[in-house]
């Protein structure tokens, strides 16, 4: 039985009263009269920030936290998101004073401990990638993609191939792939997938030309299917003069077992918040790392973190004339990188290989069990083993019972389980993209599948129940259309609308 907390919690602005105090910041005794801001630049009215005492701030956010689902409550099988347990030791090490109180502009000789860890992490990631060089500067996966594509672009321009502005990606790719391509000023050439979900080789052959900058491909792909023809693909792209980009969102499937560099890729990004278990934080902070081979190395963002063996000294290298520049104000999400380092070091090579093995086994187990439920079918290539995830289609259920994949997802919420990623990838219909990760044991998966089955049975008898799910959650089925029509995007706009007498729920 699941009942999520429901508090009708007011906005924190509405909980305060003038004169209440939650915190006293350190204060100096200098006379306040000495403050001289140029008159036309003086703030006249203080910002309307909440005024509460400390305990009430605590209560407000604790109550809000109760209205949140998280990986430490139950299964969170979001495909392509790799929701794994966030080891608590990583939170502890990230809160070391020797991590938190380090200014990015302090002298590098006073940051040798941290630089050593960052350097070791760069090497470990490069080893796993089968590529030689790493930057940790990219603060999220999309930033990693932007960086990797920028390297490819810079390389071609350096070769005088300025016409190479096309990135080829399959129609099953993550949404960030085309968006990162366009942000780099390149064009996306989308190619169709085969019936088995793999890249269509003829489509690839006809897509490459002297305008090809590269192929952007995650492997295994978003259906959880390994692109077995990757060597042939890489030859096709290479013969055309293009390079290969590996989207590391799905790396959990192959850690230590297959290396993108050995598959012919030139560059990749890792999502440290996926593969290496750093928290998702309800939407970040994440962190990415970009690894590349020697032909792309000259273009890596400045600074790189290098090591002088003779002096046993770690340093920032800004002497990189061909660099694409900076992609973050400093060196990326360092405190996240430290967590990823701790994760890798807790598992070691063998542990990481087991991680991949177990993630792939649980995914196949979950997908094959779900596939047997009346109303689901496996999307694409029924006989091909899945890797870390698999995609089901709820099309038969929608057709036969007028209950959609989204409805089933919402019913699961009523049962205290998170839904899989729904309606992605776009090449599947009524998609249910399932990725349990190595974090789910067999009993949990059995329970998950049994719950899905129970809910689907209920929906068959009473489709209305399904259409109105979820129940027992903090709020009922969201109507996001209202938010788009009314655009109440801040407390200020809320107050304005209230004053005008407009309806606000």
């Amino acid at each position, binding site marked *: 039985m699941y009942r999520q907390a429901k508090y009708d919690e007011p906005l924190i602005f509405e909980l305060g009263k003038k004169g209440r105090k939650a915190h006293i910041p350190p204060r100096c005794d200098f006379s306040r009269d000495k403050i001289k801001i140029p008159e036309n630049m003086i703030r006249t009215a203080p910002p309307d920030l909440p005024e509460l005492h400390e305990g009430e701030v605590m209560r407000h956010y604790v109550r809000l936290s109760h209205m949140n689902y998280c990986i430490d409550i139950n299964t969170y099988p979001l495909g392509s998101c790799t929701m794994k347990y966030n080891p608590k030791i990583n939170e502890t090490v990230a809160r070391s004073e020797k991590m938190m109180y380090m*200014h990015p502009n302090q002298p590098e000789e006073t940051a040798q401990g941290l630089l050593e860890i960052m350097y070791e992490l760069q090497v470990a990631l490069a080893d796993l990638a089968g590529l030689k060089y790493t930057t940790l500067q990219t603060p999220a996966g999309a930033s990693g993609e932007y960086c990797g594509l920028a390297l490819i672009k810079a390389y071609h321009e350096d070769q005088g191939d300025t016409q190479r502005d096309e990135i080829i990606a399959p129609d099953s790719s993550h949404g960030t792939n085309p968006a990162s391509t366009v942000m780099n000023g390149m064009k996306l050439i989308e190619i169709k997938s085969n019936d088995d979900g793999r890249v269509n080789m003829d489509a690839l052959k006809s897509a490459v030309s002297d305008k090809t900058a590269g192929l952007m491909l995650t492997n295994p792909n978003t259906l959880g299917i390994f692109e077995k023809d990757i060597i042939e693909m890489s030859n096709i792209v290479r013969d055309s003069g293009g390079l290969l980009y590996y989207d590391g969102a799905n790396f959990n499937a192959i850690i230590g077992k297959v290396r993108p560099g050995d598959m012919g890729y030139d560059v990749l990004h890792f999502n440290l918040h996926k593969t290496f278990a750093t928290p998702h934080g309800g939407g970040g902070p994440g962190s990415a790392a970009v690894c590349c081979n020697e032909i792309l190395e000259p273009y890596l963002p400045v600074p790189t973190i290098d090591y002088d063996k003779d002096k046993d000294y770690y340093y920032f290298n800004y002497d990189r004339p061909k660099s694409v520049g900076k992609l973050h104000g400093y060196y990326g999400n360092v405190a996240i990188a430290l967590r990823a380092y701790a994760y890798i070091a807790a598992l070691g090579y063998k542990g990481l290989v087991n991680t991949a093995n177990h993630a792939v086994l649980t995914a196949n187990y979950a997908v094959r069990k779900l596939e047997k439920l009346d109303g689901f079918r496996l999307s694409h290539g029924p006989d091909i083993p899945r890797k870390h995830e698999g995609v089901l289609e709820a099309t038969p259920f929608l057709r036969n019972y007028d209950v959609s994949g989204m409805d089933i997802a919402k019913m699961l919420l009523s049962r205290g389980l998170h839904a899989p990623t729904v309606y992605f990838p776009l090449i599947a219909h009524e998609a249910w993209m399932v990725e349990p990760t190595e974090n789910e044991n067999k009993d949990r998966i059995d329970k998950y599948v049994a719950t899905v089955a129970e809910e689907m049975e209920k929906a068959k008898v009473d489709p209305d129940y399904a259409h109105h799910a979820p129940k027992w959650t903090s709020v009922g089925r969201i109507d*996001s259309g209202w938010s788009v029509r009314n655009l109440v995007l801040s407390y200020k706009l809320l107050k304005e609308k209230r004053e005008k007498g407009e309806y606000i729920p």
Partner: protein
Amino acid sequence: MKNDFKGHPYLANSQQDLDEMMEYLGIKDIEELYSDIPDEIRFKGELDLPFYKSEYELLEAIKTKLSKNITTREVRSFIGGGVLDIYMPAIQDELLRRTEFYSAYTPYQPEISQGTLQSLFEYQSMICELTGMNVANCSLYDWATGVGEAALMSARITKRNKFIYTAATAPNREAVLKSYVVGANLELASIPYDPATGKIDITKAKEMLDDTVAGIYIENPNFFGVIEDKLDEIITKAHEHGVKVVVGADMNSLALMKPPAEYGADICIGEGQTIGGGPLNFGGPLLGILAMKFDRRETRQMPGRIVGITTTSNEGERAYANTLETREQHIKRERATSNICTNEGLIALSCAIHLSLLGPEGYKDSAETMYLSAHYVAEELEKNGIKRIFDSEFFNTFVLDLKIPKEKKKEFTDFMLERKIFPGIPHSFDGNNYDYLVTTSYLLCEEDLNDYVKAIGEWRN
């Protein structure tokens, strides 16, 4: 992996579980699930990765490595430049360690994610209060990427491809701006500053503003710490030509200074770390702030996630949800306003908690201490004949005229370190000598400030 798995705290299944799942799938070895991968690309070696057998050993090893660091709490730090050492009240980390917040995903299922969504709505609202704007997004990566995103956004809104910015922009933010606009092919031009005052050159700025410019970026206080108080003519001219005015504000300065919206900014960006986003963390994670004046058309050009109020199938029920999602990559793919997906959600929550703790009074009080500490140091140094480069009003940052030759920089760093001081950010105007950008937070007491003045004096003698 045949029957040899001994268990690991991060792996949920026992060998028996694995065997049972394999049996269900009709396989004898997990390797069979990898059988479709060509043998020639399988990795057959073993990697020498860092490995510690127990959690205790791991903790000790990391602690030993980190012990080589010297922190801003072990010395007196006068370093700012966009991020600043701040105090996070104990309650703040207590809340941030709530797993309900940090181990949740992006709220793709809003019905069970109201905690994240409401707190992000509150964060957006607080940013609006500080900046005077009425829409803010859920966060960008940091201030620097905010400059890049603001340039691209201005270009989308105006359908123009030239972006101008003050030369008194922080070098790291300028560098990120440059690499962000390559793809969109934006033309960049920098507006010089007056070498005496350090303020933006009004005449030059006005000359550069015309109908081809998408946006103008001004930092206030600027990178040198100088308050830009003569912006009226520039902003008026910008608006006459339909140019978007982007202001990069020091978020603490806004406790004392006019919110950018009130003096004509259309878009305001900045760094949220300094107002409670989190500890320094060697520069990341940070919190990129992006706010704007609401406009039905233009707000649709904003990058990143935005939370709005909405309703549910239960009549009259208030809820929060990601809105205007058709701007985003997971819906619009190559037509998205930005590729940003995972952002800095938890840091935004952290910032909201911090601002709730400060309240209007604490926010102002802490900014006043920053201001007064910096002015005290500047005045005391001036008494000793050591001047600021720019003779203008400032908030908590100024450039100290030290002219340390390149070859003596290391010696100066060591000299100050011996006195337990990080003296600031070295900045060279002539390529040969270093002056120092000095910033004060509220963490240093009068004695620390006096020590700084004394140390600089000793160096000069």
